[in-house]
Every structure is written in C-alpha cells, then in structure tokens.
C-alpha cells in the first residue's frame, strides 16, 4: 500500500549520496492504450508547468523496475493527469532535459522561466528498504523561487502509478484550490459484439484508465456497477441464470453474493456514502419501487409506494437524503426524499424528462440525464431543482457519475444506428474540457469512486 512519509531532504541527501549522474538513456515509451480524444474547448489560460522526469540517486532495479525508468513514467502520469484536468499545460517529461538528483531541491528557475513555465514539478525515485521505493515530489513557483508542495511516499513498486496520482493530486489541489481526484478508480461495463447481442463485462480501472482489469467473463450480461466507498466491493446487476439480480462482488476474493433473496427482479443498486447501506429497485408484478437494505443483508425497507416506476437513487453525501427518479407524474422526473422514504418531492421541471440523478460528493449539485427532442444530454441542477445547466449536446449522453471532488462528470455516450457503440467520456463541471476516456473495448455505465486513502 501507499504510505505517505514526511522527510527531511537534507537527511535523505546525506544518507543517499548524490551521484554525478550520467544522463540515463530514456527508456523506449511504447503507447499501449488508445489516445484520449479531446472535444470542445479547453480553458484558454492554462498554467504552464514543467514536468521533467523524476531523478534517482542511483539507478537500481527494484522488482524488475529501474528507478530511472520509473522516474520518467511517473512524470508521464503526473503530466497526463495535469493536462487532463484542463487547467494546466505540462512541458515534459518528453522533450525535457533529465534533472539531476541534486536539482530536485535546487531547481534552475531561470531555465524554466525561459520556457514560460510558471511552475515546475521535480521529484525523485529511490530504492527504499525491503524492496520498497521512495518517491518524492515537489512543486515550485519559478518566479518566486519558492516551494509550494512537498510530498513523499514509501510504496511497493507495483503502486508506482498511485504515487504519481498522489503527486498530481497534491499539485492540482495546491494550484486550483480544489480537492484532489486523480488517485481514484472507476468501475464500468466493457462492451463488445454486435448491437443485438452485446457482451457486457464488469471492469475496473484507475481514473486515468491505468491498471485496467476485467472482472466478469461476459457469459452473463452485466450492467450498472457501483464501487463501494472503500473499493473492496462492487455492487452490480447480473443476468446470471437468466434472472435480473443485484450481486455484491468482493474484489479481493472474487466471490459474490446476492444483495437480497427474492424471486423478483432487483436492479439499479447504489451504495450509501458510508458503505453500510445499499439502495436497489425491485419490480413486483411489473411495478418497480426503491428499497434500502443493510450491505450485510437483513430485511429490506421499502421506500417508495406508488403505481409508477420508482427507480435508481443516489444518497446525498451526508447520507440523509436520496435523489431518485419516478414517472408517477407521467414521464420520468427527479425527486428527493428522506432516507426513510418520507417527504418525497419532485425537483425537476421544465422541458423533457429527467433521469439517472447522481448527487455530487460536494452536496451542492445533482447531475442527471435530460431526455427531450430524441436526445439525451447531461445536466446539473441544485438539490432543490434550480440552476439547471446542460453540459453536453450529443445524440445520447447518459448516466453521469461524479469525480470525488465534484469537479468532473463522467458519463457514457452512444452513437445511433446499426453500428451504434458506447464509449466513456468526461466533462468539467463548467461544460468545457470534454474528453473521451481510453478503454480497451467500448464502455458504458461508469461509476467513479472516492479518492483512495
């Protein structure tokens, strides 16, 4: 796991003598994942940040990974994270001179200023004890010559991407004032095969698409996954044995169990923010209502009781309210209620239908799918239904999910026609910086989890 460490650079420097580095040969960088697609506008005044490869005190191989190669790869992940935020324009690590270990704490500010970099990221990767790695990263203001961020981590070599995300998070938070979000994960559905018989597999990945892993083999249709807040479990719907049922999948053991025993279809599961409760929808004789149950099982509590379809749901971050959708007024609209089902109130009005509400982790907004004019678009509104803003404008954009800091929204986009496909996208809360996420296959139903501890 990732262990943050506070360290004195002077101490580290004395215990690890700085070698006069001969410039290490940059490792060949082989692109293994599809590139992101950027659509729409980026912020016009992006801050330029220098991100040279992280230095190493001495080139060592730990668990088959060379510390100098890792220094470059970590810098690549940091630069990609910062670029993806839409707020920053990184310079490097490619095309940028490798810094020395001594430079980490003594940047050549003039050199970075000459490249119009307002900030520069420096760092190192050193071999630690017992097969671990020590990763340090620093953010400097090149004009003031001041240190803005200093982070250090002792990690197992396999966690190097997380160290990079933690560095990027620290830099992003310091410069933007926003909470971090890079070091987080996404569960989604990987899709393949013809439209009439899609193979749908549960899959997970880091927020940048790294560490991708398929969970289910595709024999049973899988839809609508949600990571538990501690990332140990995934709740989702499987059509195993030609039934529609909510399962809780245990990531470590690979075992899964039913959320509740029922002869009825159960679907649309969601976790409570503390991971102790699960919402699900159940159809009884054709009528769907929303239920809440302990994640450990027990007796479910029925929360809605109308002849209409009541489905989905998302907890407010304080765990006291639930936003859900219902067609009790005719078409789909968004409603809120207390977690015991009391005080049900419609909050979405205006043109078209509103569906798939998701409460922001910051609590101030609800993202939803607006249906109208034959199109699905992603929008946000306040918990009382005001301040509606539409963020996307495509044929079918569906099912928003929030970044852990409530700043970015992921969703899936479907194209029309016989060859229609779905892919994962994300957009900034302000509607700019629209990007397609790289996935090995087509993708749908993204679910973004919290920042890792």
């Amino acid at each position, binding site marked *: 796991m990732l262990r943050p460490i506070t360290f004195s650079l002077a101490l580290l420097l004395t215990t690890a003598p700085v070698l006069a580095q001969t410039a290490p040969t940059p490792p060949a960088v082989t692109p293994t994942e599809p590139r992101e697609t950027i659509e729409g506008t980026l912020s016009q005044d992006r801050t330029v940040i220098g991100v040279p490869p992280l230095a190493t005190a001495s080139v060592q191989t730990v668990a088959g990974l060379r510390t100098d190669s890792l220094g470059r790869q970590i810098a690549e992940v940091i630069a990609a994270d910062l670029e993806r935020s839409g707020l920053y324009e990184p310079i490097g690590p490619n095309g940028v001179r490798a810094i020395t270990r001594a430079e980490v704490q003594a940047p050549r500010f003039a050199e970075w200023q000459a490249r119009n970099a307002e900030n520069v990221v420096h760092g190192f990767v050193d071999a630690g004890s017992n097969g671990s790695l020590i990763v340090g990263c620093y953010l400097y203001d090149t004009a003031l010559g001041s240190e803005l961020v200093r982070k250090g981590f002792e990690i197992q070599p396999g966690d190097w991407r997380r160290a990079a995300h933690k560095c990027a998070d620290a830099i992003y938070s310091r410069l933007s004032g926003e909470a971090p979000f890079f070091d987080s994960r996404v569960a989604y559905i990987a899709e393949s095969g013809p439209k009439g018989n899609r193979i749908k597999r549960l899959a997970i990945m880091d927020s940048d698409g790294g560490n991708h892993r398929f969970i289910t083999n595709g024999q049973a249709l899988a839809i609508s996954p949600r990571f538990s807040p501690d990332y140990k479990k995934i709740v989702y719907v499987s059509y195993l044995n030609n039934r529609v049922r909510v399962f809780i999948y245990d990531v470590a053991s690979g075992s899964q169990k039913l959320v509740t025993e029922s002869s009825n279809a159960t*679907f649309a599961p969601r976790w409570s923010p503390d991971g102790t409760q699960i919402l699900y929808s159940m159809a009884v004789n054709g009528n769907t209502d929303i239920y809440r149950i302990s994640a450990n099982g027990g007796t479910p509590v029925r929360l809605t009781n109308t002849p209409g379809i009541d*489905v989905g749901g998302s907890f407010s971050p304080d765990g006291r309210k639930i936003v859900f959708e219902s067609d009790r007024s005719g078409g*789909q609209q968004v409603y809120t209620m207390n977690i015991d089902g009391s005080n049900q109130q419609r909050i979405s009005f205006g043109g078209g239908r509103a569906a798939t509400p998701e409460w922001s982790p910051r609590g101030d907004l609800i993202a939803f799918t607006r249906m109208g004019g034959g199109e699905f678009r992603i929008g946000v509104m306040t918990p009382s239904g005001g301040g509606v803003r539409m963020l996307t404008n495509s044929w079918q954009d569906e099912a928003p999910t929030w970044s852990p800091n409530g700043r970015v929204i992921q969703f899936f986009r479907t194209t029309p026609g016989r060859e229609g496909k779905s892919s994962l996208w994300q957009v900034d809360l302000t509607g700019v910086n629209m990007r397609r996420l790289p996935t090995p296959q087509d993708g749908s139903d993204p679910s973004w989890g919290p920042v890792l501890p």
Partner: protein
Amino acid sequence: MTIRKSTAMIAAITMLAVGACAKKAPDTLPPAPEGTGTDTGAGTGTGVVPGSQEDFLASVGAMGDRVFFDYDQYNVDAQDQATLQTQSQWLQRNPAVRVTLEGHADERGTRDYNIALGERRANAAKNYLASLGIDPSRINVISYGKERPAELGSTEEAYARNRRAVTVVIGQ
C-alpha cells in the same frame, strides 16, 4: 430443459409423438409449417416436437410470439389481445409447457428505467394470458430493458419492433 436436443433425442421423441398421434386429440398436432410440408415423419428425424419452441412458433405464426407497445406504454391493445389469444390456445393445448415472457424497450430510455418498463410490458402480457385461463405459475417474466434489441437501427420502425414482449418456450 433447453430447447435444443440431440438429433437422437429428437428422433426418439418424434417417433413417440407420431406413435401417440392416433390416440390424442387432433389439436395436439402442430399445423404443418408453411412451405416445409409434412416433414415430421420419423424417417427424417427433423420433426417439430409438440410443446417445443418450434411447435409454438409454427402454431402462432410469424411474429405471433410477440406483442408490441407504444413509446413508454405497456397497455395491451386489441391487436395484442388477438396475438395473446392465439398464444393461449397453444398453451392450453400444451398444459405442461412453461414459458418466459421477455419484456423489452427501445433505446430511447435510460437503462434502469427501461428494465422497469420491460417488467411492466412482460407483466401486462402475462396478466392478459392469465385472464384467458393460463396458470400464471407457468409464466416466468424477465426484462431485458434496451439490452437486446431485435432491430438494430435507430429509426421509428426499429423502435416500434423493439418495444415488445416475447413469449419463449422454456420447457415442460
């Protein structure tokens, strides 16, 4: 029980079925499939097994296994009633047969809602069959929402064909 059987089994069952013909009421025999002639003889081994999905489809006719719905609706209209009446006659002739009613929606709804909508449609068809005297315990219901379109296009015609409840024989 799965629909597909080994050739040997089909041959054996076909011979049994043919052998039993004389003693059973004529209406246990499936009508001859159009254009294929009476190829239910034991000699070919490719006959339609009474009570099978093939038998059902041959009996109810093309598209007779499904009823269609308007956008975001689940009411069973007069045309649907006629279709389900034909299905119920076959089900009454084959009282041991169990079926699944698959509810589907077009792609113009969100995923979870469409599962709920497919449940409504499949249950509406099930309830109508029950009103015609079919024991509801013979009928399973499953909703596929928008996951399994029959028509792949994104046109009104395709959507109309995808808003459906399909009766599928699952065994006896």
